[in-house]
């Protein structure tokens, strides 16, 4: 228990030898998920459209979580996460239209697609360091985008269409699962909420496992980890593959809901926006990026009409990178722990900034 209080007092959200989420934090999360679940029927009766928005928020939260696991927690920046997301989505679309709409088949398939895509990209890219790894993921994601956009598989297999080209695949129907009618948005909401909650629980578990601890070590000091006996490349590939699986799941949830799978899913701007969400939310905290993603999707929906939305988002992002690199979660944790110290640090940061600019 003492360790738990020590942890809460620490500024860096990811802990030092302790769990990634304190029992206090876990309690909050459980309550949050429970409230979301309870609110479902309420929202449906008041304003059903909001359920659609929530489902989208949850899907991106899952995607952001997958990126945070590999970037915030393991320290590997990926600028191509859209690849696993889109691949999972496309596979789901293809399976639903051509084979079966059973969620028990398609969702695992989407996950596996994400895992395999990430495993392949990871395996060839992992020797590259830092920026170069990020650029490699970008390059591969763009290649997959082009393949979908130009429907290369159709050309190779001499079929009329596989990916649907620049229009993509549409008219994707919803899942079949134990006879549940997913046209009732509430049901799809619960499905998404449930899977996202399970994913979060799973990744937290993973982060605290012996495997996850090594990842944390890789983030802290990659050089040293090798010299204490760990095969760093292998850990990285496996972590990347796991991250890809969750991204693929997000794609598998998103596509039938939108009933469309198009190349936009794979575009690098999606990957870029994901990185923004993770950083804004607070990298390495798991819950921070999820909240960040939900927030961005929500604001985009509400303010998207307002042309200056991008300026605000971009400006906010720039400000966070300069002044609050630990993001929203970092700020919340710092203020909750010691408000006065947090204020002091903020003022000091401002002073340092002005000095640095003056040069």
């Amino acid at each position: 228990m003492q360790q738990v209080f020590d942890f809460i007092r620490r500024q860096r959200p990811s802990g030092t030898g302790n769990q990634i989420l304190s029992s206090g934090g876990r309690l909050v999360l459980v309550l949050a998920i429970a409230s979301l679940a309870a609110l479902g029927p309420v929202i449906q009766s008041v304003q059903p459209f909001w359920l659609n928005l929530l489902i989208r928020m949850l899907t991106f939260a899952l995607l952001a979580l997958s990126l945070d696991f590999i970037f915030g927690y393991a320290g590997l920046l990926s600028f191509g996460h859209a690849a696993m997301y889109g691949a999972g989505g496309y596979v789901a679309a293809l399976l639903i239209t051509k084979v079966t709409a059973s969620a028990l088949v398609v969702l695992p398939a989407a996950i596996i697609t994400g895992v395999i895509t990430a495993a392949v990209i990871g395996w060839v890219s992992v020797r590259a360091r830092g920026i170069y790894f990020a650029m490699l993921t970008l390059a591969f994601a763009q290649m997959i985008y082009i393949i979908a956009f130009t429907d290369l598989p159709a050309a190779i297999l001499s079929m009329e269409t596989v990916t649907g080209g620049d229009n993509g695949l549409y008219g994707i129907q919803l899942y079949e699962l134990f006879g549940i009618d997913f046209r009732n948005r509430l049901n799809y909401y619960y499905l998404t909420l449930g899977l996202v909650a399970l994913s979060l629980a799973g990744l937290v578990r993973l982060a605290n496992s012996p495997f996850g601890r090594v990842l944390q070590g890789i983030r802290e000091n990659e050089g040293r980890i090798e010299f204490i006996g760990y095969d760093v490349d292998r850990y990285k590939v496996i972590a990347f593959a796991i991250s890809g699986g969750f991204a693929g799941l997000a794609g598998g949830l998103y596509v039938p809901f939108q009933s469309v799978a198009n190349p936009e899913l794979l575009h690098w701007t999606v990957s870029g926006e994901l990185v923004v969400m993770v950083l804004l939310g607070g990298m390495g905290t798991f819950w921070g990026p999820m909240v960040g993603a939900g927030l961005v999707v929500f604001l985009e929906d509400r303010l998207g009409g307002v042309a200056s939305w991008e300026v605000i988002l971009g400006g906010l992002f720039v400000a966070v990178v300069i002044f609050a690199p630990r993001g929203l979660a970092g700020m919340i944790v710092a203020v909750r722990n010691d408000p006065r110290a947090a204020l002091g640090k903020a003022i000091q940061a401002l002073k340092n900034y002005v000095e640095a600019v003056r040069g």
Partner: protein
Amino acid sequence: MIDSILRATLLGIQSGMTLALIAAGLTLIFGMLDVINFAHGALYMLGAYFGVVIAAQLGSFWLALLLAPLVVGVVGVAIEMLSLRPLYGRNPLYHILLTFGFAIMIQGAVVQIWGGQARQIPKPDILTGTVTLGSLDYPLYRLFVLVVSTLLIAAVWLAIERSNLGILMRASAQDTEMVNALGIDVSKVFTGVFVFGAVLAGLAGVLLGVSRSVNPGMGMGIIIEAFVIVVIGGLGSFRGAVYTALLIGLVTAYGALIVPTLTELFLFALMAVVLMIKPNGLFGTAEAA
């Protein structure tokens, strides 16, 4: 047949040289400042938009060509001094994120100010029409862009290799402390390099704003191409950027004749291969030039 090849060659060289203007700035900024400037495409776009405005207000393409890049330079100063300078100590990944944020901001601002419609900078009368080369009729303006871009690249090349300024730049990249100890304010050199890159990008924006459409998506569109060039050529290598830009310009032009869709795929595959096998790029990063 020969006509198509000749046309494609000219087109390839021209687009290659203009791409070089953009890529050169990007690679120099990395070589000097260790910053991957994701906002470089946005700066190029700003050059085009400023060009549209100035050409409309002052009625002259030439004034636009002269002034718009300078305005972009001012934007560059603001970005460098207000956001990059305070972050120089940090992990380089932050710079990518920071400049990416600016790219988003600038794109939003462009839509906000000028709307989403496509525009163009009007071609100056002197440069309208075609030139007859053998049996080929080639647009005069494109030829003009080719010549201007090539001259500019050559000038920059000479400046970097020969002039005192160039030596100073390279020295600052290699040993910041030493240069500081010599009494030169390195932070000003850094700002200068960033602005220089911005101006080049803005210039390319004006030049291409005549023949291509000026729209809010052009920034994001060009930055990826610029990355491909800079990575393959070698982050930090001016020479590499120029050669590769030329190569890619030609490959794209010829590829358009044969199998357009696969060209882009091929280029990304090449980028991946370079990153995997020789991350320093085809021309290495031994020196900043």
